């Protein structure tokens, strides 16, 4: 898939099989893009909208994609920019209603894992959310994060360090408020 990722899809699109190439891309990347959008926007509906907009942009630009970067990197950068612009335009719209999280997305062994995380993400600004999304969801190295965010590696580390501190502190406060029931400490 990696070979194909660096331009094969665009080749296909240019050679008249744009719809097939696009459908394959949507199939492969829809969940990852959605998770990225969910992390940044904290709202399932907004995340779905952002994902749709992302893929529409991909659809329009696919024939012109030159393969300078991996196609996944290209798609994620479109998604992140889309989310950042949505956050900038109307942050209040993206405030999450915890009950809005679709139940089927929660793993069966832990019925309520995401509201805390989503609420905690609300303590971060857009760039910090971008950093944690790249780090946790895309498994990017500091160097890759630096390239994608357009900031020095030192700044990436600072963003991530501060973001993780805020999140950990939020979780800690939450645990202190909730009566001890063994929840929230992971493995």
């Amino acid at each position, binding site marked *: 898939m990696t070979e194909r990722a660096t331009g094969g899809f665009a080749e296909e699109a240019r050679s008249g099989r744009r*719809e097939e190439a*696009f*459908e394959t891309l*949507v*199939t492969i990347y*829809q*969940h990852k*893009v*959605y*998770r990225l959008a*969910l*992390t940044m926007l904290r709202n*399932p509906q907004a995340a*779905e909208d952002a*994902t*749709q907009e992302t*893929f*529409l942009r991909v*659809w*329009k630009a696919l024939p012109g994609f030159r393969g300078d970067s991996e196609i996944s990197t290209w798609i994620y950068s479109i998604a992140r920019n889309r989310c950042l612009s949505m956050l900038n335009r109307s942050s209040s719209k993206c405030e999450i209603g915890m009950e809005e999280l*679709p139940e*089927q*997305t929660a*793993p069966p062994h*832990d019925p309520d*894992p*995401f509201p*805390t*995380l989503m609420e*905690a993400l609300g303590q971060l600004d857009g760039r910090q959310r971008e950093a*944690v999304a790249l780090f*946790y*969801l895309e498994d990017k190295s500091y160097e890759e994060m630096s390239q994608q965010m357009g900031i020095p590696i030192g700044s990436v*580390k600072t963003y991530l*360090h501060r973001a*993780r*501190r805020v*999140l*950990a*502190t939020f*979780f*800690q406060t939450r*645990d202190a408020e909730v009566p001890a029931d063994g929840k*929230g*400490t*992971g*493995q």
Partner: protein
Amino acid sequence: MNCGHAQDQLLDGGFGGQDLTGHLASCAECRRFAASVEAVDAAFHRLRIVLAPPTLKPNVLLRAKLEQGLRRRLITLALDTLAAAGCVAALAAVLFWIYPQPAVTAFALVLGCLWAALFRGTAIET
């Protein structure tokens, strides 16, 4: 090692190390902090299995098709308009060559425009 250093090390991903282990063994506050960092990591780990809603893909494909259809229609419409305008211009030129009277040419132009508008209207409907 003090609490600040210990927590910094925890945030930078270092759960090992003798100094840190020793500090955690003696500091309840940092143990709680370490547990919270692990809880954050675990929550993100669980987030990685979230799936997009099943309606997302069909909606995306539908919107892409609609966008493509709209683009095609706009191109077709532009080409139709150009063709109609060309016909009108040619008609006017021929008429002016045969009957070099402005009134006749103007009349023919009006007729041509009406025909073109009708043609375009039909094209839009179809």
